[in-house]
């Protein structure tokens, strides 16, 4: 589960940023701080995930269109592809 919105305490201190992954440990920590409800991102279907990943990889191709000849950029591109696959799946 990932947070749809950042969580703040009563003093306005940000406890968890939007997009953070909720774990058992972080849920317990939030409860100890008096946070009993948070907004989580709605689950995404596999079909939608596939479409998001395809769009994301196509955008990466576009972003790197002038620089794939450079070895450092190819390595960066490959790491970004891996990152998108890990974060979207």
């Amino acid at each position, binding site marked *: 589960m990932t947070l749809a919105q*950042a969580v703040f305490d009563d*003093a*306005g*201190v*940000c406890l*968890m*940023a*939007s*997009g*953070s992954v909720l774990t058992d440990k972080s849920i317990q920590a939030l409860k100890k701080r008096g946070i009993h409800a948070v907004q989580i991102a709605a689950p995404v279907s596999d079909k939608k995930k596939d479409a998001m990943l395809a769009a994301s990889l196509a*955008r*990466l191709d*576009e*972003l*790197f*269109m*002038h*620089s794939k*000849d*450079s*070895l*450092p*950029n190819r*390595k*960066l*591109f490959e*790491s*970004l592809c*891996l*990152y998108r696959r*890990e*974060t979207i799946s």
Partner: protein
Amino acid sequence: MSGLTEQDIAGAVLRLPALPNIVLELIHALDDKDVDTHTLAQKISYDQTLTAKVLRLANSSFYGMQSKIGSIPHAITVLGFNSVRSLVLAAAMVDTFADHASGDLDHANFWKHAIGTALCAKVIAAHRGANQDQSFIAGLLHNIGRLVLATCSPQRYRDVLQRCAQRNEDLLTAEIHVFGIDHKTAGKAVLEYWKFPAAIVGTLSSGQDESPAQGDSAAIAAVADAIAYALDLSGGQYDRVPSITTADWDRLALKESVLLEIFAITETQFEEACAILGATGNV
């Protein structure tokens, strides 16, 4: 089309909005180890809008503080003067240029990319054991020369953007074709005019021989710039990832696992930082 002269660039720099006095004082203090932080903290506090933004940043997930920071002197005690200075510079720069007209250059897009580069540079610097605050400032100002060129001639900058769009030309090539110089050269002129220390001005010379004092800073700014584009943080239609030199890449030697961590931290902090600094498309 004739290239820009030094006088043209100097004229454009003068037409940029004036930075607030407190910002100029903070820039001049970058090289000063005996800086009077107490007086500077008081001066920052006089600007309520700036103070409010800096405190929101200090209390954001960017620092992950456990208790609320309520004043500039408190922020300096907890975060250190250098961190507070980089937050003040970021908030003031975005504010100062918010209403500055410069042709077709999309200001929200420009500052979103600058903030993304600054955040990424800070994360890379932390990994490399380099100066995080200096890297943050260098990342923020890495593309400031684009503002100079767009101010110098809005029509010619429009031509640059059209070349990028219609001919799929990369930005630096299009700038050199239209202006005779690229935004890095123009950026150096403005940073020197504002009297930034050589260590920050020198970050616009990546891929060249760096002095030992310069350390990793130019390579960090260049790689952070490329990562910010690669993460598509500003989302500009014609954004493209610039080529990273082998010298810069090899110097930082970032392993894939480290890169994945850098991507994740930068993305996590980005939206919150943009929202606080007002670089969300409604600037």
